[in-house]
């Protein structure tokens, strides 16, 4: 028997994604953002999160899938990884789930248009629910921002 993981479940399009609960600081409603000039498109800006200036990225944009209109259910999931604290805009966030680590399988090459390196694995939950676990280290990889900036400059 593997260990039980508690994950926060959120939605992007029709897929359900998960991030370990201990990596999630808070979940916020959409708030007005301050645009930061000369950043990649998926960086939506910064917000004042109880006195701390926190950068926000659109997770759809980050994965290169089409960005959606923000709705009532749109949420910002504030995650912390290492010394980074970043907010991720998702379509909805509404569940906490226990996942057994034995049920996690390696991700296929591409899931819902997202490259495998951003994913930690796919967990089968219940009969026909699939939960895609994110690899935050890659999702929040700063080097990619720098590379993108350089591409834009050219």
């Amino acid at each position, binding site marked *: 028997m593997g260990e039980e993981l508690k994950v926060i479940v959120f939605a992007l399009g029709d897929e359900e994604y998960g991030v370990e609960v201990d990596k999630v600081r808070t979940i916020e409603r959409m708030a007005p953002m301050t645009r930061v000039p000369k950043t990649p498109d998926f960086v939506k800006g910064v917000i004042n999160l109880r006195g*701390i200036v926190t950068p926000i990225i659109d997770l759809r944009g980050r994965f290169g899938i089409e960005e959606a209109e923000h709705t009532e259910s749109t949420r910002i999931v504030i995650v912390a990884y290492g010394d980074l604290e970043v907010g991720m805009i998702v379509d909805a966030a509404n569940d906490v789930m226990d996942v057994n680590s034995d049920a996690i399988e390696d991700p296929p090459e591409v899931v819902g248009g997202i490259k495998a390196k951003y994913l930690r694995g796919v967990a089968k939950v219940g009969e026909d629910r699939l939960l895609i676990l994110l690899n935050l280290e890659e999702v929040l990889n700063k080097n990619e921002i720098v590379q993108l900036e350089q591409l834009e400059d050219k």
Partner: protein
Amino acid sequence: MEVNQYLSMFIDESKDHLQAMNDNLLALENAPDDMTIVQNIFRSAHTLKGMSATMGFEDLAHLTHEMENVLDLLRNQKLTMDDFIFDVLFKGLDSLEAMVYDIIEGGSGKADVSALVASLQSIVSGDYKSQAGQQTGNVPAKQEESNSRQLDEFQVSILKQSMEQGVHAYSIEVTIREDCVLKAARAYMVFEALEHNGEVIQSSPSVQDIENEKFDRSFAVYYVTGLDQEALTALVGNVSEIEGVHALLLTPESLDEQQQSQKQQADAKPAQEAADDKPAGGGKARQAQGNQAAKVANRTIRVDIERLDVLMNLFSELLIDRVRLESLAEEIRKNELTETVEHMARVSSDLQNIVLKLRMVPVESVFNRFPRMIRDISKSLEKKVELEIAGADTELDRTVIDEIGDPLVHLLRNSVDHGVEMPSERTSNGKPETGTIHLRAYHSGNHVFIEIEDDGKGIDREKVLKTAIKNNVVTAEQANTMEDTEVYQLLFASGFSTADKISDISGRGVGLDVVKSKIEQLGGHVFVESKLGAGTKFSIQLPLTLSIISAMLIRVGNEKYAIPLSSIVETMAIDPGKIRHVHGNPMINYREGVIPLVSLKQVFECPASDEAESEELNLIIVSKGEKIISLEVEEFIGQQEIVLKSIGKYLPNLFGISGATILGDGQVSLIIDPNALFK
């Protein structure tokens, strides 16, 4: 015992003591006969030894112990200071410092001190002199005498001094019960009690021996105190397991008698002279110092820097809410609310001052390592340099203090190496043989200035230009039209050095450019003034604090930005028709010249505003050193104190943005870094 909680205290205190020893040794070099200084060094060394032994840093304790032995001989005038002893003591200090820093870094503080210990021991035994060919065989003989209960001139003078001031002087003999197990501990308690109420002038056997339990059952001390005989006897008698206390009140006469009965040798005469004037004054000074130290110790506490940072952050939050409340009160327009908010604003600006002051540290903590550094550098370059420090009590924000050390080291080294000439050159130019470097710090407005001024050879304009042309920094044509100040700024270009030969100290061409960028990082500026043949002055201008700044809020499109007031020259509005185009770049007339016009909207790719364009162009004129540009904005919102916030590590190297702040309405506003907008 949980050692960790004491470790930070140990580190702080040992740094203090090392610094004190360093300072005092330097002072002693100028006044080798001043026994009060030796006494001070001895005390620091002694405390340091005790502390490091308690903390289990054996090597540290071992080395301090040996240094203490030498110092002990010195203060009892059994040994006279010479260059060899100074050098060994300084080396000892260096390795002590290295060990303490190792401990700070998390190391074990271990080091090979055997060579130093050997030199120190050779000093104690007097061997080093015989090796040098100077025969003074009487040093060991003198050492034996130190065990007898003798007072030296210095101690006698203190005793006399005290008597003149109406303080009682006693000779006390304390006997400890035979069955006492921890004799040293009891003796320690006696000393504790004594030192609380007065001062122990001399003890026999020595304090170290007593601490190491190297005594039989009794020990004797000379002691000055305000207590009368009865109270004193009771005080010492109160310590348990003490069998007997015999306190004898001393008078000047009885003391003289005692002194005369002790046959003094040939060296008594010079020492006597010294005792007549210097130590008498010194004794007084020392007592005064002691009192002062006690007061200061009671009035200050050490606080973890992290807590101050937390306090600062909390205060920033409060400031944001205050601005928010102010704008709410303005909307609501209710008298009571407005009054309360105004009062709160006043209180919070007082609070702001205090919180900021808490983070202020005297620049002394950076300056105090320089005398030693200058001494070492000038020795290795065989130059004669004196460092005069003024305004060491000037306070700066801790963040600035932490960063300013290295640039100052560079500039000072530079002054010694390139500025001050060799002694022979100085005398032939009619200057005093010893060069002087002034290091000054002072407040002026919202800035602190640090100046490094030498009376050396000054900057050779032609030589600088020649190197600059050779290194393709400027062209020959440009060189001819350059002002002196512009030429001096070339020194800060990277890869630039005018030193003919590369020395150990500077001249590698790295340094001044690093100095400049570091100071600019801190929001400061460097200026150079120089007169060929007369000297050079580097002035550093630094902001008082880095965490709260005054800024101008502006609007571009629908976005609000803040521009630090420190880089703004002025604001103005002009007619759009006045924009001229030079090579396709927009420029405007400003004062005597033409300056570039930078549109913030274009630079930051701002989306268009909903509001109608105004008929005039609003401009902010900003400067970076000598350069001036104008920034086009859409609206001036006003001046405000803003709290600097980091934008987080996720967004690296933002162009033209130095940070963020939170406005009264809770919105984040970005702070523009005008320096990045200069091309």
